């Protein structure tokens, strides 16, 4: 049952993804940008311009370009249908490889931030809900509203100033490791995991150390919506008829508490999933501030350089991941909540 549900959702997701990639491909080319001029410079000769245009494949009609994007050019073995996203116009290397290199960095950053934000946010939110009208309730409400609305880049900078410049207790925004440390061998791409795989606990700790400020910033911003939502869900559940009735039926308090958490958990899971999906494309600014070369930095670089194949690759990757996360939420939801029809 659950497998058929998953497969059906996956099929729908694939259709969505195909529409999305078509849209991105044509949208980029509809906009009045001139990547050729960007590469050869404004004052290039018409000949040089034409040559560059040809080498980027932009001299072809758009439909031909799209064909090449899907099936590769000639017999170069590329094309989206073979799983190849093309070659970056700026670096000349494969977009697949670049994404393979940058994506784990971003995932590592946001996963760690989420662990902290959820780990702290859920108990705090519950705490705010159990005593309505109390100081904890008001405090969590205001904190949730505040943190949830804040610009992460501004806070990143404030944290750098306070913890690095003034107090000197945190590392500077120099990336994921000290420039003097040799990174561990590339296995997964997530430096903490790779360090552990290489048996280098010292590098693992150093990586965590260097990630501490970006994680602090991200988990601060993320904790806002998580606390706010957990607080509201739990409060709502505690006011639900079935809680009142459970009390009237003389159910022990432990059982009632478990009932409330169970009912509040499912919607919370959805919101956390959506936030996570959002952050894959939203960690851009944090990466930029802390010089973490993840997918976000790659996106900024590609967009500002009009590197179309890379832009397409980034959007496709982020969307595909987001869809997968939504799929995972749906499946979990279907397993947890009998009301969700499979």
């Amino acid at each position, binding site marked *: 049952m659950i497998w058929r549900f998953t497969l059906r959702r996956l099929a729908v997701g694939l259709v969505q993804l195909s529409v999305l990639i078509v849209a991105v491909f044509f949208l980029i080319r509809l906009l009045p940008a001139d990547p050729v001029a960007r590469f050869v410079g404004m004052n290039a000769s018409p000949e040089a311009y034409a040559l560059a245009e040809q080498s980027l494949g932009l001299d072809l009609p758009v439909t031909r370009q799209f064909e090449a994007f899907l099936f590769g050019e000639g017999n170069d073995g590329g094309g989206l249908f073979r799983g190849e996203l093309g070659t970056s116009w700026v670096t000349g290397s494969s977009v697949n490889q670049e994404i393979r290199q940058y994506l784990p960095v971003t995932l590592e950053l946001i996963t760690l931030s989420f662990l902290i934000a959820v780990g702290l946010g859920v108990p705090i939110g519950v705490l705010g809900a159990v005593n309505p009208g109390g100081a904890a309730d*008001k405090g969590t409400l205001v904190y949730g509203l505040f943190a949830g609305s804040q*610009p992460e880049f501004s806070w990143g900078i404030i944290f750098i100033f306070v913890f690095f410049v003034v107090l000197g207790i945190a590392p500077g925004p120099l990336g994921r490791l000290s420039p003097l440390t040799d990174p561990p061998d590339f296995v997964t791409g997530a430096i903490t995991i790779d360090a552990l795989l290489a048996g280098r606990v010292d590098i693992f700790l150093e990586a965590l150390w260097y990630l501490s400020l970006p994680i602090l910033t991200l988990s601060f911003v993320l904790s806002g919506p998580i606390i706010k939502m957990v607080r509201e869900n739990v409060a709502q559940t505690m006011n639900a008829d079935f809680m009142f009735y459970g009390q009237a039926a003389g159910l022990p308090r432990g059982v009632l508490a478990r009932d409330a958490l169970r009912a509040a958990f499912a919607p919370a899971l959805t919101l956390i999933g959506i936030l996570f999906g959002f952050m894959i494309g939203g960690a851009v*600014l944090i990466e930029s501030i802390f010089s973490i070369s993840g997918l976000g930095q790659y996106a900024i670089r590609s967009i500002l350089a009009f590197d179309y194949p890379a832009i397409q690759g980034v959007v496709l990757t982020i969307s595909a991941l987001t869809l997968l996360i939504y799929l995972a939420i749906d499946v979990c939801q279907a397993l947890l909540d009998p009301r969700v029809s499979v």
Partner: protein
Amino acid sequence: MSNTGNRDESAAFGVLAWIGVGIVSCAVFLAIFSPWLIPYDPTQATENVSMPPPPLSAWPSLFWQTIANGSPTPHWFGTDASGLDVFSRTIEATRTDLIIALSANIVSVIIGVSLGVISGYFRNIWTETLLRTADLLQSFPVFITAMILVALAGRSWVNIVLAMSLLYAPIYLRLTRTEVLALRERSFIEAARALGKTELGIARHHILPNAIGPSLIQFSVTIGFAILLTAGLSFVGAGVRPPTPEWGSMIATGATQLVLGDWWPSLFPGIAISVTVFGFAVCGHVLEKRYGR
């Protein structure tokens, strides 16, 4: 536990609501009157480069001297590395950011609400296509898509507004459509029909006024998002072009001086943006609690 308790938020509510309304009014006031309030031209460098702000304790006397003796206005928030007055730029940026955020939301509301009413009222192949398109737009990663649109279309504030409208209109469309679908089942719509009202009359007099509420609540929340997006785009160099004063680009320029200990060029615009978006978030929350479902 014998008392599930009343969620008595009324007290905190009053205070919160006043904070929200106060912040938003201040921001709007500054945006409107900034040309008359700022002591220096926000795009004209002074000869004082990287000048720190005067200590807080000196502010009252400095203020008094400015008014009474007509001595030159101090750089309240200091100056940045190019000698621009941070105070004037922070105030003037309120205008830039608010205008962009407001315009984007007004355009989105107009497009989203009218398409929402249409797609809720008529169910055919066109409105289906419209809905699918809205879904598609909502499945794009917001920040990256905005960056692509603005960077490739040209870094002007009009393009930022258009890009954001494209991303936010679907939110209003969805909200309105849901509301319209629920309204269509309400008895008073049927009653109006039985009383001889035309479909257009029903849409104008009953559906639209009743369906717009959630969008207006969303408006307050989305303005906050829009300010963050505007600032974020400028921060990575894909937003309004310098030297136009804008919080995000000010924070970015200031950040380069941060390691040298010059905190003021990025801190003051940072505070401004934090407070403003908090104000809009509070207003959205208060509106939702009071008028929302």
